[in-house]
Protein backbone atom coordinates (compact mmCIF):
# COMPACT_ATOMS: atom_id res chain seq x y z
CA UNK A 1 0.00 0.00 0.00
CA UNK A 2 2.81 2.35 0.96
CA UNK A 3 4.55 1.56 -2.32
CA UNK A 4 1.38 2.27 -4.29
CA UNK A 5 0.87 5.59 -2.48
CA UNK A 6 4.48 6.52 -3.13
CA UNK A 7 4.06 5.70 -6.80
CA UNK A 8 0.95 7.86 -6.98
CA UNK A 9 2.81 10.66 -5.18
CA UNK A 10 5.78 10.43 -7.51
CA UNK A 11 3.41 10.37 -10.49
CA UNK A 12 1.69 13.53 -9.27
CA UNK A 13 5.04 15.26 -8.81
CA UNK A 14 6.16 14.19 -12.28
CA UNK A 15 2.90 15.51 -13.75
CA UNK A 16 3.41 18.80 -11.90
CA UNK A 17 6.99 19.07 -13.11
CA UNK A 18 5.88 18.40 -16.70
CA UNK A 19 3.18 21.07 -16.32
CA UNK A 20 5.80 23.56 -15.16
CA UNK A 21 8.14 22.64 -18.01
CA UNK A 22 5.44 23.12 -20.60
CA UNK A 23 3.91 26.22 -19.03
CA UNK A 24 4.13 28.84 -21.77
CA UNK A 25 6.25 31.90 -21.12
CA UNK A 26 3.96 34.89 -21.03
CA UNK A 27 5.04 38.49 -20.57
CA UNK A 28 3.84 39.96 -17.31
CA UNK A 29 3.87 36.66 -15.45
CA UNK A 30 6.95 34.92 -14.13
CA UNK A 31 7.17 31.11 -14.14
CA UNK A 32 6.44 29.61 -10.73
CA UNK A 33 9.42 27.31 -10.77
CA UNK A 34 13.02 27.50 -11.87
CA UNK A 35 13.61 26.18 -15.40
CA UNK A 36 17.37 26.62 -15.60
CA UNK A 37 20.20 28.08 -13.53
CA UNK A 38 22.21 30.91 -15.01
CA UNK A 39 24.52 33.26 -13.16
CA UNK A 40 25.73 36.51 -14.68
CA UNK A 41 29.24 36.96 -13.31
CA UNK A 42 30.06 40.28 -14.96
CA UNK A 43 31.27 42.94 -12.53
CA UNK A 44 29.20 46.03 -11.63
CA UNK A 45 28.52 48.49 -14.47
CA UNK A 46 28.87 45.94 -17.24
CA UNK A 47 25.15 45.57 -17.94
CA UNK A 48 23.91 43.45 -15.05
CA UNK A 49 20.59 45.30 -15.01
CA UNK A 50 20.23 44.79 -18.74
CA UNK A 51 20.84 41.04 -18.47
CA UNK A 52 18.13 40.81 -15.80
CA UNK A 53 15.89 42.83 -18.11
CA UNK A 54 16.57 40.60 -21.12
CA UNK A 55 15.47 37.55 -19.08
CA UNK A 56 12.58 39.34 -17.35
CA UNK A 57 10.05 36.79 -18.62
CA UNK A 58 11.85 34.22 -16.49
CA UNK A 59 12.72 34.21 -12.80
CA UNK A 60 15.48 36.79 -13.19
CA UNK A 61 16.61 39.36 -10.63
CA UNK A 62 19.20 42.08 -10.53
CA UNK A 63 21.28 42.57 -7.35
CA UNK A 64 19.56 39.71 -5.56
CA UNK A 65 19.95 39.68 -1.74
CA UNK A 66 22.35 42.58 -2.18
CA UNK A 67 23.02 43.57 1.43
CA UNK A 68 23.23 40.03 2.81
CA UNK A 69 25.53 38.88 0.03
CA UNK A 70 28.03 41.74 0.09
CA UNK A 71 28.17 41.45 3.87
CA UNK A 72 28.99 37.76 3.54
CA UNK A 73 31.67 38.59 0.93
CA UNK A 74 33.16 41.14 3.34
CA UNK A 75 33.14 38.73 6.28
CA UNK A 76 34.74 35.99 4.23
CA UNK A 77 37.39 38.39 2.97
CA UNK A 78 38.11 39.56 6.53
CA UNK A 79 38.48 35.96 7.72
CA UNK A 80 35.34 36.17 9.87
CA UNK A 81 33.51 33.56 7.79
CA UNK A 82 35.01 30.19 6.88
CA UNK A 83 35.00 28.89 3.34
CA UNK A 84 32.54 26.18 4.41
CA UNK A 85 30.16 28.70 5.97
CA UNK A 86 30.38 30.90 2.89
CA UNK A 87 29.56 27.96 0.62
CA UNK A 88 26.60 27.12 2.83
CA UNK A 89 25.44 30.72 2.51
CA UNK A 90 25.75 30.54 -1.30
CA UNK A 91 23.70 27.31 -1.41
CA UNK A 92 21.04 28.84 0.87
CA UNK A 93 20.96 32.00 -1.21
CA UNK A 94 20.47 29.99 -4.40
CA UNK A 95 17.50 28.18 -2.89
CA UNK A 96 15.59 31.20 -1.55
CA UNK A 97 14.15 32.53 -4.79
CA UNK A 98 15.14 29.67 -7.12
CA UNK A 99 16.14 32.04 -9.87
CA UNK A 100 16.58 31.18 -13.51
CA UNK A 101 18.94 34.12 -13.91
CA UNK A 102 20.79 35.75 -11.04
CA UNK A 103 22.32 38.89 -12.49
CA UNK A 104 24.09 40.34 -9.47
CA UNK A 105 27.28 42.32 -9.90
CA UNK A 106 28.90 40.71 -6.85
CA UNK A 107 28.55 37.15 -8.22
CA UNK A 108 31.97 37.87 -9.70
CA UNK A 109 33.50 37.69 -6.20
CA UNK A 110 32.68 33.97 -5.89
CA UNK A 111 32.42 32.73 -9.46
CA UNK A 112 34.69 29.82 -8.50
CA UNK A 113 32.33 28.75 -5.71
CA UNK A 114 29.30 28.95 -8.04
CA UNK A 115 31.03 26.83 -10.68
CA UNK A 116 31.99 24.30 -8.03
CA UNK A 117 28.70 24.14 -6.14
CA UNK A 118 26.25 24.03 -9.04
CA UNK A 119 27.24 21.53 -11.68
CA UNK A 120 24.22 22.44 -13.83
CA UNK A 121 24.79 26.20 -13.67
CA UNK A 122 25.74 28.15 -16.76
CA UNK A 123 27.56 31.45 -16.70
CA UNK A 124 27.18 34.65 -18.64
CA UNK A 125 30.29 36.78 -18.30
CA UNK A 126 29.80 40.33 -19.56
CA UNK A 127 33.00 42.32 -19.85
CA UNK A 128 33.36 46.03 -20.53
CA UNK A 129 36.46 47.97 -21.57
CA UNK A 130 38.24 49.46 -18.57
CA UNK A 131 37.87 53.12 -19.61
CA UNK A 132 34.13 53.26 -20.16
CA UNK A 133 33.73 50.97 -17.15
CA UNK A 134 35.69 53.28 -14.86
CA UNK A 135 33.88 56.35 -16.15
CA UNK A 136 30.51 54.67 -15.56
CA UNK A 137 31.49 53.38 -12.12
CA UNK A 138 32.69 56.80 -10.99
CA UNK A 139 29.57 58.47 -12.37
CA UNK A 140 27.36 56.08 -10.49
CA UNK A 141 29.05 56.31 -7.10
CA UNK A 142 29.48 60.08 -7.29
CA UNK A 143 25.87 60.45 -8.36
CA UNK A 144 24.20 58.13 -5.86
CA UNK A 145 26.71 58.22 -3.01
CA UNK A 146 24.61 60.47 -0.82
CA UNK A 147 21.69 58.02 -0.99
CA UNK A 148 23.70 54.92 -0.16
CA UNK A 149 23.41 53.03 3.11
CA UNK A 150 26.65 52.26 4.95
CA UNK A 151 26.95 48.66 3.79
CA UNK A 152 26.79 49.80 0.17
CA UNK A 153 29.44 52.46 0.78
CA UNK A 154 31.67 49.75 2.21
CA UNK A 155 31.07 47.64 -0.87
CA UNK A 156 32.04 50.60 -3.08
CA UNK A 157 35.31 50.82 -1.14
CA UNK A 158 36.14 47.24 -2.10
CA UNK A 159 35.98 48.45 -5.71
CA UNK A 160 37.33 52.01 -5.54
CA UNK A 161 39.54 51.77 -2.48
CA UNK A 162 39.43 53.32 1.00
CA UNK A 163 39.55 56.90 -0.35
CA UNK A 164 35.98 56.64 -1.63
CA UNK A 165 33.48 58.65 0.41
CA UNK A 166 29.76 59.00 -0.30
CA UNK A 167 29.74 62.82 -0.29
CA UNK A 168 32.54 63.26 -2.85
CA UNK A 169 30.09 64.06 -5.65
CA UNK A 170 29.13 67.22 -3.77
CA UNK A 171 32.68 68.39 -3.00
CA UNK A 172 34.68 69.26 -6.12
CA UNK A 173 37.91 70.14 -4.26
CA UNK A 174 38.02 66.92 -2.25
CA UNK A 175 37.02 64.92 -5.32
CA UNK A 176 39.95 66.35 -7.30
CA UNK A 177 42.30 65.45 -4.44
CA UNK A 178 41.08 61.87 -4.15
CA UNK A 179 40.39 61.08 -7.80
CA UNK A 180 43.87 59.67 -8.66
CA UNK A 181 43.53 57.17 -5.80
CA UNK A 182 40.03 56.15 -6.91
CA UNK A 183 41.21 55.67 -10.50
CA UNK A 184 44.19 53.56 -9.41
CA UNK A 185 42.08 51.35 -7.13
CA UNK A 186 39.30 51.10 -9.72
CA UNK A 187 41.54 49.91 -12.54
CA UNK A 188 43.27 47.49 -10.18
CA UNK A 189 39.87 46.06 -9.23
CA UNK A 190 38.79 45.86 -12.88
CA UNK A 191 41.83 43.81 -13.86
CA UNK A 192 41.84 41.57 -10.79
CA UNK A 193 38.10 40.84 -10.85
CA UNK A 194 37.93 40.10 -14.57
CA UNK A 195 41.02 37.86 -14.51
CA UNK A 196 39.59 36.03 -11.52
CA UNK A 197 36.27 35.37 -13.25
CA UNK A 198 37.98 34.23 -16.45
CA UNK A 199 40.15 31.80 -14.52
CA UNK A 200 37.23 30.48 -12.44
CA UNK A 201 34.70 29.77 -15.17
CA UNK A 202 34.28 26.33 -16.69
CA UNK A 203 34.70 27.03 -20.41
CA UNK A 204 32.06 24.51 -21.53
CA UNK A 205 29.40 26.16 -19.36
CA UNK A 206 30.22 29.79 -20.07
CA UNK A 207 29.65 32.51 -22.61
CA UNK A 208 31.56 35.79 -22.82
CA UNK A 209 29.77 38.88 -24.12
CA UNK A 210 31.18 42.37 -24.45
CA UNK A 211 28.98 45.07 -22.94
CA UNK A 212 28.96 47.09 -26.16
CA UNK A 213 27.62 44.03 -27.99
CA UNK A 214 25.01 43.05 -25.42
CA UNK A 215 22.09 44.60 -27.31
CA UNK A 216 22.88 42.51 -30.41
CA UNK A 217 23.63 39.33 -28.48
CA UNK A 218 20.10 38.12 -27.75
CA UNK A 219 20.26 35.25 -30.28
CA UNK A 220 23.58 34.05 -28.78
CA UNK A 221 22.17 34.30 -25.27
CA UNK A 222 18.98 32.44 -26.19
CA UNK A 223 20.99 29.69 -27.85
CA UNK A 224 23.38 29.44 -24.90
CA UNK A 225 20.64 29.22 -22.28
CA UNK A 226 18.39 27.04 -24.48
CA UNK A 227 15.29 29.24 -24.56
CA UNK A 228 13.24 30.54 -27.50
CA UNK A 229 14.58 33.86 -28.74
CA UNK A 230 11.12 35.42 -28.67
CA UNK A 231 10.90 34.93 -24.89
CA UNK A 232 13.79 37.35 -24.34
CA UNK A 233 12.93 40.99 -23.74
CA UNK A 234 14.65 43.16 -26.31
CA UNK A 235 12.73 46.14 -24.89
CA UNK A 236 14.59 45.77 -21.57
CA UNK A 237 18.06 45.15 -23.00
CA UNK A 238 19.34 48.55 -21.96
CA UNK A 239 17.34 49.49 -18.92
CA UNK A 240 19.86 51.58 -17.06
CA UNK A 241 21.29 54.64 -18.73
CA UNK A 242 23.36 56.95 -16.60
CA UNK A 243 22.40 60.61 -16.75
CA UNK A 244 24.57 62.93 -14.67
CA UNK A 245 28.15 62.98 -15.91
CA UNK A 246 31.15 63.94 -13.81
CA UNK A 247 33.78 63.59 -16.60
CA UNK A 248 36.15 62.30 -13.94
CA UNK A 249 38.59 60.67 -16.33
CA UNK A 250 39.18 63.89 -18.23
CA UNK A 251 39.76 65.67 -14.94
CA UNK A 252 42.37 63.24 -13.68
CA UNK A 253 44.87 63.59 -16.53
CA UNK A 254 46.67 61.26 -18.93
CA UNK A 255 49.76 60.51 -16.82
CA UNK A 256 47.75 59.23 -13.87
CA UNK A 257 45.54 57.13 -16.13
CA UNK A 258 48.51 55.65 -18.02
CA UNK A 259 50.35 54.84 -14.78
CA UNK A 260 47.33 53.22 -13.16
CA UNK A 261 46.54 51.23 -16.32
CA UNK A 262 50.07 49.86 -16.48
CA UNK A 263 50.40 49.08 -12.77
CA UNK A 264 47.02 47.31 -12.70
CA UNK A 265 47.90 45.12 -15.67
CA UNK A 266 44.86 46.08 -17.72
CA UNK A 267 46.65 45.73 -21.05
CA UNK A 268 46.34 41.95 -21.37
CA UNK A 269 42.57 41.95 -20.99
CA UNK A 270 42.12 45.04 -23.11
CA UNK A 271 44.18 43.63 -25.97
CA UNK A 272 42.27 40.35 -25.79
CA UNK A 273 38.74 41.78 -25.65
CA UNK A 274 38.97 45.40 -26.79
CA UNK A 275 41.99 45.74 -29.06
CA UNK A 276 40.55 48.86 -30.65
CA UNK A 277 40.50 50.67 -27.26
CA UNK A 278 43.64 49.14 -25.76
CA UNK A 279 46.08 51.75 -27.02
CA UNK A 280 43.84 54.80 -26.66
CA UNK A 281 43.46 56.79 -23.48
CA UNK A 282 39.96 58.17 -22.93
Amino acid sequence: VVGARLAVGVGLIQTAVRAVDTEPITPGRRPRERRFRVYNVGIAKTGTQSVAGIFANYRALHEYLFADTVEAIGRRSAGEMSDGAFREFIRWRDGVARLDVDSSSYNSFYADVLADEFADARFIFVIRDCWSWLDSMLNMVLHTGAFMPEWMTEHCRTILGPRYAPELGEDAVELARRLPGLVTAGLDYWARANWFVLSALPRERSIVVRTNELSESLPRLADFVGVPLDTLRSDLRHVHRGTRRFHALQAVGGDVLRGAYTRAGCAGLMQRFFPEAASALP
Partner: protein
Amino acid sequence: MDDERRMDEQRVRKVKDAHARIAETLIQSAAEPRLRQQLLDRPATVFLRPDAAEADSHNALIDDLRRQIATQLMDRVAQDPDFASLLRQDLFQAIRTAGLAPQVEQLRAEKPVADEVTGFGWGSSWWWVLGWLSGWG
Protein backbone atom coordinates in the same frame (compact mmCIF):
# COMPACT_ATOMS: atom_id res chain seq x y z
CA MET B 1 22.79 69.36 -14.17
CA ASP B 2 20.28 71.28 -12.06
CA ASP B 3 17.34 69.60 -13.77
CA GLU B 4 18.89 66.17 -13.28
CA ARG B 5 19.58 66.89 -9.65
CA ARG B 6 16.00 68.07 -9.17
CA MET B 7 14.77 64.83 -10.75
CA ASP B 8 16.99 62.78 -8.44
CA GLU B 9 15.68 64.65 -5.43
CA GLN B 10 12.09 64.17 -6.57
CA ARG B 11 12.71 60.45 -7.01
CA VAL B 12 14.19 60.11 -3.55
CA ARG B 13 11.38 62.16 -2.04
CA LYS B 14 8.79 59.98 -3.75
CA VAL B 15 10.41 56.82 -2.41
CA LYS B 16 10.73 58.27 1.10
CA ASP B 17 7.07 59.32 1.03
CA ALA B 18 6.05 55.83 -0.02
CA HIS B 19 8.19 54.28 2.72
CA ALA B 20 6.67 56.61 5.31
CA ARG B 21 3.17 55.66 4.18
CA ILE B 22 3.99 51.93 4.36
CA ALA B 23 5.48 52.34 7.84
CA GLU B 24 2.46 54.30 9.13
CA THR B 25 0.01 51.80 7.64
CA LEU B 26 1.79 48.92 9.38
CA ILE B 27 2.14 50.74 12.70
CA GLN B 28 -1.53 51.81 12.80
CA SER B 29 -2.70 48.35 11.75
CA ALA B 30 -0.54 46.69 14.40
CA ALA B 31 -2.43 48.67 17.06
CA GLU B 32 -5.97 48.24 15.72
CA PRO B 33 -7.36 44.69 15.13
CA ARG B 34 -9.94 45.85 12.59
CA LEU B 35 -7.32 47.63 10.47
CA ARG B 36 -5.00 44.65 10.83
CA GLN B 37 -7.66 42.30 9.50
CA GLN B 38 -8.51 44.64 6.63
CA LEU B 39 -4.88 44.83 5.69
CA LEU B 40 -4.41 41.07 5.81
CA ASP B 41 -7.53 40.60 3.70
CA ARG B 42 -6.02 42.83 1.01
CA PRO B 43 -2.27 42.80 1.64
CA ALA B 44 -1.44 44.62 -1.60
CA THR B 45 -2.84 47.77 0.01
CA VAL B 46 0.16 47.93 2.35
CA PHE B 47 2.47 48.56 -0.54
CA LEU B 48 0.43 50.05 -3.37
CA ARG B 49 -2.04 52.83 -4.12
CA PRO B 50 -5.64 51.58 -3.78
CA ASP B 51 -6.22 51.47 -7.56
CA ALA B 52 -2.88 49.76 -8.19
CA ALA B 53 -3.57 47.34 -5.34
CA GLU B 54 -6.89 46.39 -6.94
CA ALA B 55 -5.20 45.64 -10.26
CA ASP B 56 -2.37 43.79 -8.55
CA SER B 57 -4.22 41.58 -6.09
CA HIS B 58 -5.17 38.62 -8.29
CA ASN B 59 -2.12 36.49 -7.64
CA ALA B 60 -2.59 34.29 -4.58
CA LEU B 61 1.10 33.46 -4.19
CA ILE B 62 2.16 37.10 -4.28
CA ASP B 63 -0.60 38.03 -1.83
CA ASP B 64 0.48 35.20 0.50
CA LEU B 65 4.05 36.52 0.52
CA ARG B 66 2.85 40.05 1.18
CA ARG B 67 0.62 38.74 3.98
CA GLN B 68 3.53 36.89 5.62
CA ILE B 69 5.75 39.97 5.46
CA ALA B 70 3.05 42.31 6.77
CA THR B 71 2.09 39.92 9.58
CA GLN B 72 5.64 39.58 10.83
CA LEU B 73 6.28 43.31 10.66
CA MET B 74 3.05 44.11 12.54
CA ASP B 75 3.80 41.45 15.18
CA ARG B 76 7.26 42.93 15.68
CA VAL B 77 5.83 46.47 15.95
CA ALA B 78 3.32 45.28 18.56
CA GLN B 79 6.09 43.69 20.66
CA ASP B 80 8.83 46.28 20.30
CA PRO B 81 8.29 50.09 20.26
CA ASP B 82 11.90 50.59 19.10
CA PHE B 83 11.11 48.55 16.03
CA ALA B 84 8.28 50.95 15.14
CA SER B 85 10.80 53.80 15.25
CA LEU B 86 13.19 51.89 13.01
CA LEU B 87 10.35 51.18 10.59
CA ARG B 88 9.68 54.92 10.33
CA GLN B 89 13.35 55.82 9.93
CA ASP B 90 14.57 53.10 7.60
CA LEU B 91 12.13 50.61 6.10
CA PHE B 92 14.80 48.41 4.51
CA GLN B 93 16.88 48.18 7.65
CA ALA B 94 13.71 47.28 9.56
CA ILE B 95 12.99 44.52 7.05
CA ARG B 96 16.52 43.18 7.40
CA THR B 97 16.38 43.41 11.19
CA ALA B 98 13.17 41.39 11.16
CA GLY B 99 14.91 38.75 9.03
CA LEU B 100 12.51 39.29 6.14
CA ALA B 101 14.95 39.98 3.31
CA PRO B 102 14.55 36.43 1.91
CA GLN B 103 10.75 36.79 1.78
CA VAL B 104 11.11 40.14 0.03
CA GLU B 105 13.39 38.56 -2.55
CA GLN B 106 10.92 35.72 -3.06
CA LEU B 107 8.28 38.36 -3.67
CA ARG B 108 10.53 40.16 -6.15
CA ALA B 109 11.11 36.89 -8.01
CA GLU B 110 7.37 36.36 -8.38
CA LYS B 111 6.44 39.86 -9.43
CA PRO B 112 6.37 40.79 -13.10
CA VAL B 113 9.04 43.28 -14.03
CA ALA B 114 8.10 46.92 -14.25
CA ASP B 115 10.36 49.54 -15.73
CA GLU B 116 10.34 51.36 -12.41
CA VAL B 117 11.94 48.40 -10.68
CA THR B 118 14.83 48.06 -13.08
CA GLY B 119 15.14 51.53 -14.48
CA PHE B 120 17.39 53.27 -11.98
CA GLY B 121 21.00 53.03 -10.99
CA TRP B 122 22.69 50.86 -8.42
CA GLY B 123 22.06 52.96 -5.36
CA SER B 124 18.64 54.15 -6.25
CA SER B 125 17.46 50.76 -7.56
CA TRP B 126 18.07 49.52 -4.05
CA TRP B 127 15.43 52.02 -2.91
CA TRP B 128 13.00 50.38 -5.27
CA VAL B 129 14.17 46.91 -4.51
CA LEU B 130 10.88 45.59 -3.21
CA GLY B 131 9.01 46.15 -6.40
CA TRP B 132 6.30 47.19 -3.97
CA LEU B 133 6.66 50.75 -5.09
CA SER B 134 6.09 50.18 -8.77
CA GLY B 135 2.44 51.19 -8.54
CA TRP B 136 3.08 54.24 -6.42
CA GLY B 137 4.33 56.53 -9.13
